[in-house]
């Protein structure tokens, strides 16, 4: 909305002439004007003041003319006492306005501000008066009424997990965890200032230190899952989702509805502390988030007259079918489409260990395509070794390099296959850190980049950089011992040193040539279309 206001900045200048006759456009202009002015009041930048003041001066006459009729109507009301003082304030306004036109814009800034404030008071008063007005008189007053409500700045609520440098948010989070009886996991080590708004945990301080050993508050399957997440035993978007759904199946199996409660409402409430626990062990991935949304929806859609056994059975089979459709069959569909893109003699570059890409390559090999693979790996995770093992086990001939050698090896490559952690609504691909570098270098060498992703990983978030929302892994992972010496052993004592271990990064859609999904092969910019279609279906 703000964008449209900016882009229409030139339009209203033409509309000003029509403003007197066309009341509707006037209010639109008014909206834009007043919105800009609010921004100016907040930022106080001179340039914008000049721009707005120029336009507002021209508009002042029509605006002022509309304001008095609006304020005169509520003057009959006893509640409006602000309006009378606003009217005399406006009267000197036009008088000074003419002089303002002749003066430099900077001089009349204070007067303009006063006028704007007066106008806003008038609007507010008219809005108040409008509440007591007869419906018939709403026509002239409804427009000013509509204006203030439109003017309320769009309050965007940021998710709490990326606001950790705000002490209020921390307090809120602590209170929430206390209510849910989940222990709070404390951050570890010095956080690099650009990323101080994110969590950073240490693997040596697991969350299980603070819960009782026969865990009663949290289901044992969830505790096990949380441990496996934080230690990295279950890693990778698909693996985490499948493991999560497996744990939820056990939770549902062991669940009994307490008396006087409904399964559809109580079970969702039971799941909330588990999800907070898992979130603290390791931040949830987009695929996990979508899976949780799906389960919650299924649970709340259970009709109340069903018996517990029936409801549980349907939930368990629902989870099974979700896994089957969205993960297993989707992988088959992606493999089918992707195999068309692999031709004989290809040299394919893959990065890290993506379960989907490995699946595609194994299937292509089974279909007797002749190709070889270059596996690119990066520290500290070195996941490429696992991908290498899986491919070589099948008999595919592979080369292994570290990411620092990618520009050396790229002239040999004919295609790049990348896996994704999530696909964002603006077409950006969120994946393991290093993916955007590979895509960038591939673009420079004119090598096609194909991203393989199932649709259940599509996420409605919008991100253009890797700073806003990311995951910080344990910084001690970066410490390496060579020849018995560990140089970074006491890194915490060096005040000016910070270790940063990022997990994800975002790749812009300019570097991605094609996204292979289970719905087919789509360009990166069609992701919002898919999301829209999915929402309509549901």
């Amino acid at each position, binding site marked *: 909305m703000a964008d449209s206001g900016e882009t229409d900045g030139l339009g209203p200048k033409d509309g000003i002439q029509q403003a007197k006759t066309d009341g509707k456009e006037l209010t639109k202009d008014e909206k834009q004007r007043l919105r800009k002015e609010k921004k100016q009041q907040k930022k106080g930048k001179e340039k914008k003041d000049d721009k707005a003041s120029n336009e507002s001066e021209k508009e002042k006459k029509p605006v002022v003319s509309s304001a008095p009729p609006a304020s005169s109507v509520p003057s009959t009301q006893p509640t409006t006492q602000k309006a009378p003082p606003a009217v005399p304030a406006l009267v000197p306004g036009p008088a000074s306005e003419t002089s303002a036109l002749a003066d430099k814009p900077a001089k009349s800034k204070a007067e303009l501000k006063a006028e704007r404030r007066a106008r806003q008071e008038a609007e507010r008063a008219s809005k108040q008066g409008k509440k007591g007005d007869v419906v018939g008189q709403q026509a002239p007053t409804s427009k000013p009424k509509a204006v203030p409500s439109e003017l309320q700045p769009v309050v965007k609520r940021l998710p709490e997990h990326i606001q950790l440098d705000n002490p209020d948010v921390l307090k809120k989070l602590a209170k929430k965890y206390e209510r849910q009886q989940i222990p709070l996991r404390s951050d570890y080590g010095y956080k690099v200032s650009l990323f101080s708004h994110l969590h950073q945990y240490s693997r040596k301080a697991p969350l299980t230190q603070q819960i009782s050993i026969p865990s009663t508050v949290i289901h044992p399957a969830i505790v096990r899952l949380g441990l496996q997440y934080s230690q990295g035993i279950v890693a990778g978007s698909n693996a985490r989702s499948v493991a999560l759904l497996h744990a939820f199946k056990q939770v549902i199996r062991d669940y009994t509805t307490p008396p006087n409660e409904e399964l559809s409402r109580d079970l969702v409430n039971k799941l909330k502390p588990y999800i907070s626990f898992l979130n603290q062990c390791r931040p949830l991935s987009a695929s996990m988030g979508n899976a949780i949304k799906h389960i919650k929806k299924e649970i709340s859609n259970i009709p109340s007259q069903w018996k517990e056994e029936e409801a549980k059975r349907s939930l368990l089979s629902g989870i099974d079918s979700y896994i089957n459709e969205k993960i297993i069959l989707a992988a088959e569909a992606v493999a089918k489409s992707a195999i068309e893109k692999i031709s004989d003699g290809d040299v394919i570059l893959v990065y890290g260990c993506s379960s989907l890409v490995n699946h595609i390559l194994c299937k292509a090999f089974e279909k007797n395509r002749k190709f070889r693979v270059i596996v690119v790996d990066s520290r500290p995770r070195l996941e490429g070794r*696992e991908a290498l093992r899986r491919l070589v086990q099948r008999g595919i001939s592979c080369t292994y390099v570290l990411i620092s050698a990618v520009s050396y090896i790229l002239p040999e490559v004919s295609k790049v296959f990348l896996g994704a952690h999530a696909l964002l609504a603006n077409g950006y691909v969120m994946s393991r850190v290093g993916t955007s570098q590979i895509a960038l270098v591939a673009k420079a060498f004119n090598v096609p980049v194909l991203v393989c992703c199932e649709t259940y990983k599509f996420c409605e978030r919008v991100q253009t950089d890797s700073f806003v929302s990311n995951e910080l892994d344990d910084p001690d992972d970066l410490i390496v011992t060579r020849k018995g010496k560990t140089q970074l052993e006491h890194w915490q004592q060096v005040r000016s040193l910070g270790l940063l271990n990022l997990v994800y990064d975002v790749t812009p859609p300019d570097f991605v040539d094609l996204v292979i999904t289970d719905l087919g092969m789509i360009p990166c910019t069609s992701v919002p279309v898919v999301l829209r279609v999915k929402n309509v279906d549901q």
Partner: protein
Amino acid sequence: MEFQAVLMAAGGGSRMTDLTYSTPKPMLPVGNKPLMWYPLNLLERVGFEEVIVITTKEVYKMMSSDPMKLDVKMKLDVVCIPEDGDMGTADALRHIQQKIKTDILVVSCDLITDVALHEVVDLFRAHNATLAMLMSKAHEFTETVPGQKGKKKTAEQRDFVGVDQSGKRLLFMANEADLEDGLSIRKSIMRKHPRMHINTGLVDAHLYCLKKAVVDFLVDNKSISSIRGELVPYLVRKQFSKTTNSPKTKEDSEDQNQKKNDGSTNHELVISSRDEPLLQQAQERSCWNDHRGDMSEAYHGGKLRCYVHIMDQGLCYRVNTLAAYIEANRLAPKLFEEQAVHPTAVISERCQMGSDSMIGALCQVADKTSIKRSTIGNSTTVKEKVKVTNSIIMHGVTIEEG
């Protein structure tokens, strides 16, 4: 429920008969608390609310006669077994099989430790292990035992514990007494874990996390009578046996014979949860492996896994010899920051007390006494001009003048 705690308090104390001929081992006072109190306190601190205590009738009578001694807030479910001493720890587990509904945590009554129990349990949870146990690097006992000249090292009792490179996975466990010619390690183990660290100086804390399926397995295999002596080495060996690793066994006659000989492989294979295929799928898609360098998947595809947590710092004592008993008495008060002098003790002013000493409840200590590095039990009376050094005085003792 995740775990049920089982406390084995029926031990004989065969290595300290001087003390145990009158008092059963679980009720021996250490730092003026019965020995049983320490593992119970450990369980209580960690968050257990119920414990199944397996003990003899004699101990049960002593427990109930003096309830103040065992001031634990947990619910104790006492199971009495006959005292003839034929029952091993595994037999005891078989005895209470009906009560066991989940995975169990078995603790011995003579364990005094301040370990962070979550380290052992986390290994059990994270790797879906069948067995997780606790061991500690042994410390030399500094106290001299009366009646023993010099320090005797019982070399024949050494335990050989083999762990993998990470120090967590248990690969090999044998007692020197069982090894006649030498240490032999199977080739299959070496192929899967080429680097093995073998430790000999470890103290086994006798703290085990066992899966419920193991208890069911014990019911069917009555030949196993001791957890530490037979069950644990059996499980460690079974990790690498071919039949557990390949569920799809060929119908060879050899395999059939092997199955008959073991008689238990079929039961071991039941150590798998429901939704096993789903867990398998999650593992397949996960980019994690516990080892690298060969072509096999995580855990080499084995379903049975044994883990050990080796403590190198902190207290861990098993009070089963006289030397250990004395050491424990010296250190136990520091473990729990108890007051050295119990508030109800009446101590006269001219008594010299060293900082290492502990005085129990309702004591009366008269003038001109000196108490150094000693523990004095409850309700004892120490008359004048007595020097007590390096001793442990039991409850209800009267020491006369001079």
